[in-house]
Each structure stands twice: as structure tokens, then as C-alpha cells.
């Protein structure tokens, strides 16, 4: 491969990496912002980690993919996990407070209700499981 092409490839990878880093920074900022709002979540029971799941009734991918993934996790973890589902149409202010820009969006809350991970878009059960483990869930 010519040196010039290689340099361009490296530059492209660097720029793509910078874009990815920026995306993570924004996600981190949204997560920090959500931390201040976690105490307002009435449905959360302290002592157990939770998945806060934002959806809407007309979200097809939520029904087809995200909800089954959450169900499988709930079956796997039973009482050790609480899944809090929020209809973003019914509670638009809550969705705005949590920085939800699209559905589905899931948040992993630790046992104290502190948001630890944010997942915009469909997230597989395995990834949610790993995030729950990192958040200190007894799995």
C-alpha cells in the first residue's frame, strides 16, 4: 500500500476515532445530567439495580427486539432486577429530563438509583447483562 494512502487511512481512522470519542463524551454528559434527575424516579425501589426503558407504543423495533431482550434478562435475573418501562409519549418531561432523543433508550441504574450506562437505540440482552454486572448487580 502506498505511503500516502496509508497516511490518509490513518488520518481517516483518527478522525473517526475523534468522532466516536465525541459521541461518548456527549453520552457521558447526558448520563451526568440524568444523575441529578434519578431521585425523581418514583417507580425505582432502592436496593436493586434497574433498567430504565424508554419506549413509545408505535415503536416497532421496541416491540420486536428490545422488549424480548429485556424479558429474557428479567427471566434470567428474576427478582434481582427491576425493569421500569416509560412511555415517552405519556411522560415527555421525564424523557426530556433524562436526555432521551430516540426510542428505545435504556439506562442501567445501580442499586442506589444512580445511572451508570446509557444506551440509545436497540441494545442486546448480553450487553445489558454486562452493564448490570459492572453496575454491581448480583448476577
Amino acid at each position, binding site marked *: 500500500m502506498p505511503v500516502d*494512502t496509508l497516511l*490518509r487511512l490513518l488520518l481517516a481512522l483518527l*478522525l473517526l476515532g475523534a*468522532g466516536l470519542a465525541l*459521541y461518548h463524551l456527549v453520552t457521558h454528559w447526558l448520563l451526568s445530567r440524568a444523575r441529578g434527575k434519578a431521585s425523581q424516579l418514583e417507580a425505582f425501589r432502592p436496593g436493586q439495580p434497574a433498567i430504565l426503558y424508554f419506549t*413509545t407504543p408505535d415503536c*416497532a423495533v421496541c416491540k420486536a427486539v428490545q422488549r424480548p431482550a429485556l424479558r429474557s434478562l428479567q427471566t434470567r435475573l428474576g427478582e434481582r432486577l427491576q425493569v421500569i418501562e416509560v412511555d415517552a409519549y405519556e411522560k415527555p418531561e421525564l424523557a426530556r429530563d433524562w436526555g432521551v*432523543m*430516540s426510542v428505545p433508550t435504556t439506562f442501567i441504574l445501580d442499586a442506589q438509583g444512580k445511572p451508570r450506562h446509557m444506551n*440509545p437505540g436497540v441494545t442486546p440482552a448480553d450487553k445489558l447483562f454486562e452493564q448490570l454486572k459492572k453496575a454491581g448487580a448480583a448476577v
Partner: protein
Amino acid sequence: MSNGLQRVDHSALRINQAAIIFLLLTAFVLDQPALAGLVCLVMLFGTALKRPGFSFLYTRLLKPAGWVSPDVLLDHPEPHRFAQGFGGVVLAGSYAALALGAASLGWALVWLVIALAALNLFVGFCAGCAVYYWLNRLRVPGFLQSPPEGTFPGMRPKTR
């Protein structure tokens, strides 16, 4: 709800964005301004024909093969066309800069289009659409549509 909402297949828009990103990255890595020029032409022709330039990949290949499912939302197609046309004009500027020997400026404009297409594809925010709605708010003639109800200007609508 805003008037004039139509059924817009966002899968076609996403495939268009993905194709633009892939081809422009290839053009940059291989130092092929002609490829960036070709993407520019497809985007401008697509805008003139009122469709995403690379939607043929979706309608002729990916959708019939069942690899990509339709994602039809109630939306305004005009802001998406404006965004694509705006991207095409920026690419035309980049091609001119590259042809005139201003390589840094030319490739910087290409990267601007890549960044905005990636923002739309991965985050769901269409910067060109946001500009369209902003111009509508300023009552600029020709920018007739306002954002779908409950949707932040430029963000992907949730209503199906």
C-alpha cells in the same frame, strides 16, 4: 400535528447516508476527488428527482433481499431533500477546491459532509433539516414546513 406530513421511509434515508459516508471515506483514503464529485452529482440529481440519491441501493437491492426493513415515519420529505441538496452543494465546493489545488479546504469540506451524514445516521439528528426548519421559522419564502408536532427540529420523528 403539522400539515403536509407524509409517509417517509427512513431506512432509505439511512442507506443513503451510509453510502455517502462510505464513498466519501473511500474517496479521501484513495485520494480520488472524482469519486467525491460523483457522490456530489448523485446527491444533486437525487435532490432534483425528489428522492435520496442512493435510494436505488435500498429499493433495488437491500429491501427486496430482505436485508433492510422499511422504517416508515410521518415526516416532511422537504427538509431531507434540502439537507441532501445542501450536502451536494458543499461537495461541489469541495470538488472545485480540490480541482483548483486547495486540497486541505477541499477535503475539509468532504469531512464536513461525512460528519453531518454520520450525525444523522448514528444519532438521528439531521442538521440540514434543522437549518430548513430554522429558515421556516424566519419565514424565508419556500421553506413551508414546520417540524412534526412534538419533534425537536432536525430530530427523527417518533410517529408512525
